[in-house]
């Protein structure tokens, strides 16, 4: 599949801006989850700016594609993308996690563009499954995208949903797995190994697509391929780097759930210029 250099450059530029916003928001808030937000940035940026059928001026459009962030702790990414799309003004971003803010510490329906809360891991794929079944009942052609974390798929609920989505042949459902290899307590392979990850999803009946989750061309072509799946759900297994884009956060477990200091924020923003 061919994507123009211009389009790729544009998406890369947008992703860089989103990463800057993530760093600034979390630094301002003084707490939050930069590592997984940064590892998913390219995946979610490409989705919202190039794939998703949506209208920020009409968030309730019945035919819109649905997106749900099951790994709710990475909501700074979701918020930054939603505001960049025009769901709410960018200045709201700097109220993240503050009392009375539209932007809660984990996703909440008070935020324009967010359809369901998340935060307790493992439930989002089921939410997406429900949305997928609703499209079937209503004879609508919208698609449903769910971003999950790698540590998150240790939850049993994920595999219940994986079994059911396959049973119900939910071809309009696309899971995106941010496989950065880290969770709070360390590497996923040491805490609770996920391998052989592709075999697991394949054996559950899913169309599996493996990509480099930071390569825009691969990301776009993965979404396109998922859109062509017939009679089964798709999962994009994206190999990513935790903390991607900020050298001193990359593959550092500590930045799963720690805000950068003022000094670290400055250094990070310099790298993201």
């Amino acid at each position, binding site marked *: 599949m061919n994507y123009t250099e211009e389009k790729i450059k544009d998406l890369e530029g947008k992703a860089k801006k989103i990463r800057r916003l993530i760093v600034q928001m979390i630094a301002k808030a003084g707490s939050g989850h930069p590592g997984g937000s940064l590892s998913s940035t390219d995946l979610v940026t490409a989705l919202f700016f190039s794939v998703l059928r949506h209208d920020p001026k009409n968030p309730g459009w*019945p035919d819109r594609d*649905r997106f*749900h962030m099951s790994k709710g702790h990475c909501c700074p990414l979701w918020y930054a993308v939603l505001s960049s799309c025009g769901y709410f003004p960018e200045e709201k971003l700097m109220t993240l996690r503050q009392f009375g803010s539209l932007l809660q510490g984990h996703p*909440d*329906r008070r935020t324009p563009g967010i*359809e*369901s*809360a*998340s*935060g*307790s891991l*493992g*439930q*989002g794929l*089921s*939410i*997406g*499954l*429900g*949305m*997928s*079944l*609703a*499209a*079937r*009942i*209503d004879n609508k052609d919208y698609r449903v995208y769910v971003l999950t974390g790698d540590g998150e798929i240790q939850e*049993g*609920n994920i595999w*219940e*949903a994986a*079994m*059911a989505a396959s*049973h*119900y042949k939910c071809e309009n459902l696309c899971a995106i797995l941010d496989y950065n290899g880290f969770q709070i307590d360390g590497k996923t392979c040491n805490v609770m190994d996920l391998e052989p990850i592709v075999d697991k999803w394949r054996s559950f009946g899913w169309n599996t697509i493996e990509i480099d989750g930071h390569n825009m061309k691969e990301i776009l072509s993965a979404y396109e391929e998922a859109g062509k799946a017939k009679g089964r759900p798709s999962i994009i297994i994206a190999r990513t780097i935790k903390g991607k884009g900020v050298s001193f956060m990359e593959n550092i477990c500590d930045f799963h759930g720690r805000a950068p200091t003022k000094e670290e924020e400055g250094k990070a923003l310099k790298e993201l210029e």
Partner: protein
Amino acid sequence: MAEQLYQRDVYGKTLVELGRQNKDIVVLDADLSSSTRTGLFAKEFPERFFNFGVAEQNMMASAAGLAACGKTVFVSTFAIFASGRAWDQVRNSICYNNFNVKIVATHAGISVGPDGASHQALEDIALMRVIPNMNIIVPCDGPQTADAVKAAAGNKGPFYIRLGRPKVPTLDKKDVFKFGQAQVLTEGNDIAIFACGIMVAEALIAVENLMKKGVKARLVNMHTLRPVDTKTILDAARDTRGIIACEEHTIIGGLASSIDEVVSESCPTRVIRLGIKNRFGQSGDPGDLLKEYKLTSLDIEKAALGLFSSRK
């Protein structure tokens, strides 16, 4: 002899009726559709029924996803699984979002009988009652089950409706069902008896026997446990010598606690709690189990006489 009905039968039939009127009603079950009677809906509307297999957590969170797309989702399984197994999904995916998911849980309470303790939900009201946005109805008989299901369909937000396994007698009720408003079944100012579910029929027998002994008991069918009808509770606290709470549920966190919370704040009075006291259930015929756990009409009568002879 009063008509005897399975609440589950009424539930299944009411779902079909609602399904004909409203195309946005969707029904989910977890491999128990023949027991919960959602199978009746599945037969008539196969395109709006989804069996989730033995996977209650997925079922509850998927119900949330369907509700996010405008559906009114009825979800059924046994009460033990609906309330306990999938509690976090009910809390975070359904109630926190305030979605239109109506959990209709069958086989609640000790009257499940022979299946024994693992299947007897004695804590479900407590588990559901603590979650914000959740509405709770415990209907006393067949016809009231239809009322409860229709109220859940017609009101926004999550509901938990608790049904039993055995047949229950249909009771005379002079007032029509109003969601959120308890029904006073008999008038009386000596003592008050509050009951829900199958305990209402037991309490009614006790009230008739008490009448013969000169004690006029006010019997209240507390079908809605959330939102709680504080007025009816406080009226009883003011007018009578005390309240007896009867429930097929632990005395912690259910009907008795709902009453305690209201009276202790606004009108302290004695509340005698007839329910399951820090015990698991066991196998047996429902009638024998009600005797063992002191939940028969005789137990209610005894408690009432004790309360009546005490000083206000």
